[in-house]
């Protein structure tokens, strides 16, 4: 009799376990094995504490000469395919003529620089705009990722876990800035990481490092001693597509209204 009772208790416990574990698939993912809350630290490194940083970039449009070294360095540094369909950063040239006519181009993303074609018309204004992931504070790309493979790190950088990405391209559709692409070999979403592998080793992103005119200013968004904070204090600053409320952490000085 005693054995029967014990058995039935065991069985009860067993069914309870089965029942609970079956329901665990409905648990919010913060409670399940793969813990990827919206903000997390992607590295465990003694020398780098993600919680101490908030990264951002300012681009001084008046300083950019369109040499394209940034776009080239990015491709070198991050193994971005050399073909003209995949860019983590690129440079656009704007030529503004009278009566609201705007001509934009970015041959090979500006990697080879820009060449002056002979033209009979002179633009009223002309300038270059480097583009990259805006590392939005309110990123529409991470919001839509069905598995949480792309996320905002605690230091503000938007990253993609390529071992986890299922390659649905939803994030590419959701990015208003065209800053993402699907890597033709890995078939996962890729984008600018502010050269995260360099950041954790106390180095600036490659594009910032090679810019001959210091048009790209990289640094902390919140620390007073940061050159970025100083730059923001001194210059008039704009962001791309402010109406979308993405709150970019890539800021532009002397931004023209034609730039989208």
């Amino acid at each position: 009799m005693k054995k029967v009772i014990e058995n039935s208790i065991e069985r009860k416990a067993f069914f309870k376990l089965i029942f609970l574990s079956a329901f665990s698939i409905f648990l919010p993912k913060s409670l399940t094995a793969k813990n990827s809350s919206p903000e997390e630290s992607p590295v465990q490194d003694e020398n780098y504490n993600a919680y101490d940083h908030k990264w951002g970039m300012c681009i001084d449009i008046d300083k950019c000469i369109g040499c394209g070294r940034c776009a080239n360095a990015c491709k070198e540094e991050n193994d971005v395919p050399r073909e003209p369909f995949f860019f983590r950063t690129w440079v656009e040239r704007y030529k503004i003529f009278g009566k609201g006519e705007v001509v934009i181009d970015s041959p090979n993303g500006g990697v080879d620089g820009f060449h002056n074609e002979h033209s009979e018309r002179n633009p009223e204004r002309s300038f270059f705009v480097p583009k990259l992931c805006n590392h939005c504070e309110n990123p529409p790309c991470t919001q839509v990722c069905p598995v949480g493979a792309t996320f905002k790190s605690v230091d503000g950088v938007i990253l993609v876990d390529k071992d986890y990405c299922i390659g649905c391209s939803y994030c590419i559709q959701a990015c208003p800035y065209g800053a993402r692409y699907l890597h033709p070999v890995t078939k996962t979403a890729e984008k600018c990481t502010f050269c995260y592998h360099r950041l954790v080793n106390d180095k600036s992103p490659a594009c910032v490092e090679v810019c001959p005119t210091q048009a790209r200013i990289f640094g902390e968004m919140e620390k007073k001693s940061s050159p970025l904070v100083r730059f923001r204090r001194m210059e008039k600053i704009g962001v791309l597509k402010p109406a979308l409320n993405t709150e970019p952490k890539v800021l532009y000085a002397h931004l023209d209204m034609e730039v989208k």
Partner: protein
Amino acid sequence: MEEIIQHLTPLLKEVSGYIFPNEIELHWGLLVVIYPYLTGLVAGAFILASLVKIFDVKELYPTYRIALLTALAFLIVAPLPLLAHLGHPERSYEIFLTPNKYSAMAMFGFVYAWYLMAVLLLEIWFDYRKDLIIWSRSETGIKKWILRTISLFSSDISEKAVKFDKKAIRIITLIGIPSAFILHGYVGFIFGSIKANPWWSSVLMPIVFLFSAIVSGIALILIVYMFVLPIRKKEINMLTLDKLASYLFYVMIIDFSLECLDFIHRVYESEESIKILGELVSGKLFVSLIVVQLIIGMLIPLAAIGILKIVKVPNDLKKQIYFLSAILVQVGIFSTRWNVVVGGQLFSKSFMGLTTYKMTLFGMEGLLLSILLLVLPLGIMYVLFKFLPPWEESRSN
């Protein structure tokens, strides 16, 4: 890699104006067009079946089971195009295991599972249970066992049990209608919630998707009904057909009104994107949107069915017009999905240029696989109709 480069290089020449360099590759192609088309048919067919039950529409009873089985056949295939389009289909289970609860797409797995398990399969099972038991008694061999297995070895066909079946069906139908609304409304939300894309980003998107789904579902059942009955050498019931066409007509009017509202709203608000969207509609989308979706897929069938409502014509002509209209509606709804999915990627998010979509014949994103995925549900329907005959005369009582 080589393949993609070869595919993309000629597209560089097709670009007009300026597009971001990453935008040359169009990420959602034919497969993602098929996905909302298939789920739309599922939701539409199911909603038709539910209306029959809830409002007790006697004329449409012959289509009730056809609609349920059609919905099931298309639902089984619906996730396949999505799966085939993923860069890493082998990781797709992550959507179930670690879904991002802020992502509309992550809800897909749950909405789909709920709809398949809790709604469609249950309703079909309860509706067929008594018949399965009776059929299995007169069968022998494997078929007997298949029927018994489908009925989950239940054997109670007492009046009380059958009464319970009916009650269960009613409850499931009541849950099923909002579920079908969610199933397709949510597909619309996947697109409608993308604020980066002004062609998609519209609060009306889920509603437009839903009503176009009902339109396509009813048209499909009309086609199936008119196709299958002559094959079985049975007379088509004109009352049933008139009722189906009538439903189709009214839902099309709602769908058309919603689409007009969307159009007028966009033109009237005339936001930043209006210029590029105007170029898109009058250029690259002109044939698929204005000619196929609007004129061939909407106005002509609406006018045709509308005229039949006023003018008396011989039954044979009526049948032909109904059938042709339903086919045109299918073509129209397919191009609706095309215009949303592909159209939304033909203009740059810089609003300064347009690009082109080039379809391939072979490969995962190719035309052949897509055709296969569109034909597959018909094959499944054939098998389902064989094992679970949806005909009125097959009913045990």
